[in-house]
């Protein structure tokens, strides 16, 4: 069996999801039995235009990003969006809550209008090109990444959960964060992280994005019962959920 040629490309992000792939440590050798990386900025100097699978990390925030992404899509048979920035826009979406000129001035000061610093409101990868598979999370769950790679190598359709983080949290028998009077985004957030944050004593930040059909109205309704307001909920949802429906 010939190995799949894989290229990683990064856009607006911290490249932390690529880093998770190195965190496979000795399993990287197993991974390399299945795939041949041809471009992977954090791991190798080589670059290539010849790849089967393009793994896109980061969100799209500039016109030149958009052109580069479209060119990658042309060449790739399969395109995977990797991590929160690529799948939902991630924390980069925060700027979409403000006027773009204010954002630029806040970050770049007197250089705000320099042409190379021109940015537009953040887009997720699937707002620009067709995405075949999404691997959500900030950062990604490396076990899920590995599972998806193996599925693709086998020609099997990978399945990412369309149920809430509560499912994994209950399986871990965590005390519900709501019992501590905290707002947790678990009930509307896609599972697959093994409820990492609630298992470590934090509420769910919603980094994997919503489930397909989140009951955001229920989330708003419920706030009053916990002595919270819609704004409290919105505050929690802003970090990863700015682009997602609140109204």
């Amino acid at each position, binding site marked *: 069996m010939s190995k799949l040629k894989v290229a990683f490309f990064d856009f607006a992000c911290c490249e932390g999801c690529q880093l998770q792939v190195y965190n496979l440590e000795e399993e990287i050798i197993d991974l390399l*039995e299945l795939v041949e990386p041809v471009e992977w900025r954090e791991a190798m100097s080589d670059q290539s235009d010849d790849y089967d699978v393009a793994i896109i990390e980061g969100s799209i925030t500039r016109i030149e990003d958009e052109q580069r992404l479209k060119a990658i899509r042309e060449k790739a048979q399969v395109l995977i969006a990797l991590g929160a920035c690529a799948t939902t826009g991630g924390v980069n979406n925060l700027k979409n809550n403000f006027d773009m000129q204010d954002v630029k001035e806040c970050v770049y000061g007197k250089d705000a209008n320099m042409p190379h610093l021109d940015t537009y409101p953040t887009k997720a990868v699937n707002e620009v090109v067709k995405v075949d598979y999404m691997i959500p999370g900030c950062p990604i769950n490396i076990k899920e990444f590995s599972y998806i790679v193996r599925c693709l190598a086998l020609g099997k359709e990978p399945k990412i959960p369309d149920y809430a983080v509560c499912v994994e949290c*209950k399986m871990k028998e965590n005390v519900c964060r709501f019992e501590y009077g905290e707002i947790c985004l678990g009930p509307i957030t896609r599972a697959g992280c093994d409820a990492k944050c609630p298992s470590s004593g934090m509420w769910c930040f919603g980094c994997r994005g919503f489930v397909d059909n989140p009951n955001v109205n229920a989330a708003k309704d419920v706030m009053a*019962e916990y002595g919270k307001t819609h704004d409290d909920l919105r505050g929690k949802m802003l970090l990863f959920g700015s682009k997602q429906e609140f109204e």
Partner: protein
Amino acid sequence: MTVKKLEKAAFDKWVSACITSQRVFGVQAKEDRFVFAPLANAADLRLDYDVTILPPKKYFQPPRETLLKFDRNEGFESVFDNQPFVLFGVHPYDMVAISQTDKLFSQEHCDTHYVNRREKATIVACDVQNASKDVFAGCMGTATVNDGFDILITKIDNDYLVDIRSEKGQALAETIKDAEDADDISLKLRKLVWADNAELLQKHKLNVRPDVLPKLLGRSYEHPVWKEKSERCYSCGSCNLVCPTCYCFDVRDDVEWNLQKGERYRVWDGCLLAEFAVVAGKHNFRANRADRYRHRYYRKGKYVPEKIGEVACVGCGRCITACTANIANPVEVYNKLVDEGK
């Protein structure tokens, strides 16, 4: 069989002896709540607990359980966990749930993985000392239990009555076989505990006899309550996952990096989850929240009773506590059906 009476010190000594000789899981504190967990010291055992976050079903049907290992060329081999274990501190309502699941998993197609674990278990039940905030076992006839367990513990003042009911129980109680038998007064006091618990474990009051539920549901399929309540349903499945009588699972395969060997495993599923009823071709038999919400009540109050002759809600109240949207209270829903059906 016999009922022994042990003072606290002797009781702890017996628990320690059990821990030394067996794999013991017992109820312990976890933050502000309680859980069944591996028991290392008798002092960690909290028989004064109100309710555990998850029921003891996790030991018979783990959240994730390997069913078989396969090799794509050489076939497969089933995987069983054959190590005996002791469960210490199972409340009566959970004991009833285990007995129900025993029937369901051995009826028709016997689930060998479940039955194997179940046969390996010695169950030490204990009467409730402190009612949880949402328990309604008293309404469901499950505040006390008379069978299914190997040993039943009841605390009477500062002593423990250890009621040994089976050979497995006798084996576990070997080190206390010479302890004094419970006196008549203690046994009478135990009856009072049972009578009290039947009253005390009614934090929510069901206005209908549980055996009437199948009939009540039979005429309530189109009731507006399903839609009303489900508008606030997240479809998070918390009510299912913490339920001692929910046993649905999903079967999945995963391969190793060599793409040759792998395993088939099952994980807990729940009928409230959006994809629960999706079949081949992606058709979803219960695509609406209201349909899924209704299904749980029918499952507990009608479908399972039709299979085993018992209502599949034991009144532990875990679903009420676990539902952050506060819509999962079976008592509230069933009472509404009674009131509005008149």
